């Protein structure tokens, strides 16, 4: 089973600046945070937003849209399935760890 993380332009700049590429699990203040991901690859920004209720379709208010899709390797990571996203169509998972990045895909607008 493959897993995918949707990330911002800024997060992408940090990830590609340091090898090996991993999804960071600390916030700006240095506290551990959960990393959210899913099990489906979506090519377009608008499809990802509606499937996962993120970006401009976030029900609590619009946020920046995802810009990159990372296929991630969860070897050595613990993770939790939270079920289908409320209002969306795909499953949401979290991990407290730092998954490795296998491949990076630039997302298509819209």
């Amino acid at each position: 089973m493959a897993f995918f993380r949707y990330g911002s332009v800024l997060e992408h700049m940090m990830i590609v600046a340091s090898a090996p590429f991993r999804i960071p699990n600390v916030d700006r203040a240095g506290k551990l945070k959960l990393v959210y991901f899913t099990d489906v690859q979506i090519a377009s920004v608008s499809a990802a937003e509606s499937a996962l209720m993120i970006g401009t379709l976030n029900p609590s208010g619009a946020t920046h849209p995802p810009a990159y899709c990372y296929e991630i390797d969860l070897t050595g990571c613990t993770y939790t399935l939270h079920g289908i996203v409320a209002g969306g169509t795909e499953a949401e998972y979290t991990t407290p760890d730092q998954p490795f990045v296998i491949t990076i895909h630039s997302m298509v607008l819209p």
Partner: protein
Amino acid sequence: MTTPFPNFEVMCETDEGAASGIPIMVTIKMNQRNDYHAIVGLTDDDGKLAVDADVLLAEVKTSLELFPGDYMPVDGTSTAFAQVLEVHAMTVSEIEAALHAYDLWHTVTSYPPDYRSNLEEGFKNLLQQSPRSLSVSISGMNSTPKPVRIKPISIPFPVTAAAHCA
């Protein structure tokens, strides 16, 4: 984005009196996804620090821009914000983690100009003062559109546990 946060003042004390030059962290508690954490500055010579709601809101905006899928927005209408702020004086290990995070993120996201120097000064102050405990109290909170509860969190030490990392 309208601010749901209050302005307030933090007073930080050790077992011996006012704690000056100590970094203060505010946790913005969320009902969904991750909590936000904001490092809001150092206490002054009297152990006090004024916390501006705009600083908390700026942290929310910047974190959302960086990790849009990991956080829920905070505004005056959604229920994602739990209407609770937790406030505590940072420990030595938290300051070390914050310095590492700054080194990780500062090239792609903005921090206040004195952010890193404040953390370094706070680290030095904690080691010099070696308090047996650090407690905070809250005052001067203004009203907000929806009630917000601020929980002061006391920190038991020894603060020098991570001194070898200095």
